[in-house]
């Protein structure tokens, strides 16, 4: 889970001499990047439109959930993916405030989607088990056994 992610550390003074130098010369952030919406970005495996490279004539596979569980899981998958893509971008461009806001937005939505899934279809992390009487970690299918699309 990425819900404890914080980029605060980048703004603190660094003792490391290399970091000190780097902090004074930021890479140019590529602002206003054309981003796909979470679903479209997720099925492409690439949230960044200008980075997408199609292979031969293959189009991205449309993911159509055929039951409620698959639908709730697809929500978790696509929102977590959007947050993760921006996370990797921010690793290199930690001062891009537009993208930080977008990361916070998608991460919040991913957290909510995770809670909605877990409420009906079991825990996605052991942490989700707190305050429950039963140990339901092993009561639900493992990812390699799921038939979800």
């Amino acid at each position: 889970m990425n819900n404890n992610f914080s980029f605060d550390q980048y703004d603190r003074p660094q003792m490391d001499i290399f970091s000190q130098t780097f902090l004074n010369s930021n890479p140019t952030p590529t602002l206003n990047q054309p981003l796909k919406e979470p679903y479209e970005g997720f099925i492409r495996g690439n949230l960044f439109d200008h980075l997408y490279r199609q292979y031969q004539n293959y189009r991205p596979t449309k993911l159509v959930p055929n039951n409620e569980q698959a639908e709730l899981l697809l929500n978790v998958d696509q929102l977590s993916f959007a947050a993760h893509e921006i996370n990797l971008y921010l690793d290199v461009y930690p001062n891009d405030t537009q993208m930080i806001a977008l990361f916070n937005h998608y991460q919040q939505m991913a957290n909510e989607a995770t809670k909605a899934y877990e409420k009906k279809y079991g825990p996605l992390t052991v942490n989700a088990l707190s305050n429950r009487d039963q140990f339901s970690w092993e009561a639900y299918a493992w990812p390699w056994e799921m038939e979800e699309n």
Partner: protein
Amino acid sequence: MWKYEKRLQYPISIKKKDLRMAKYLVTQYGGSNGEMAAALRYLNQRYTMPDNRGKALLTDIATEELAHIEMISTMVYQLMKNATIDELEKAGLASHYAEHNRSLYPTDANGVPFTITYVATTGDYLADLSEDMAAEQKARAVYENLIDLTEDPDVIGPLLWLRQREIVHFQRFKELYDYYSQTKIQPR
């Protein structure tokens, strides 16, 4: 430390048994350009990145590669599920059965077991990042080779998706490489 999420990064549901494809695909589990090599490469290199950008990027991409190991493992497992000994023999997997029965084992497409010699560290972050960029390109090429070898949409979908991840990772490594090489810092 790491926490496990009980879901795949991208859904996989292969309905059709295909031992021939399992034999090829396993290389992205335990081959030189596979996901295990990628994860261990970045995890091992991150300590000597010169600033927090490098430490963060290598940690986060390595973590994603762990999720890709799980995706490839799931695909190999589902492609081999319920295979008879006769079918395994016909697909050239009797030697795999002799050692491992139907369980997973990280090898390349020729059955050569995974080795950490696929991974390098030099202590020079520009050299290490160059290796990482090359690794992403090689993995992308292997995914294209694998897509060429199958017609099953349940297999092609996740392979296209994983291929696209190599493109994004390459781009991030390249941006970091360009940033580091533009700063006037001697590699340590």
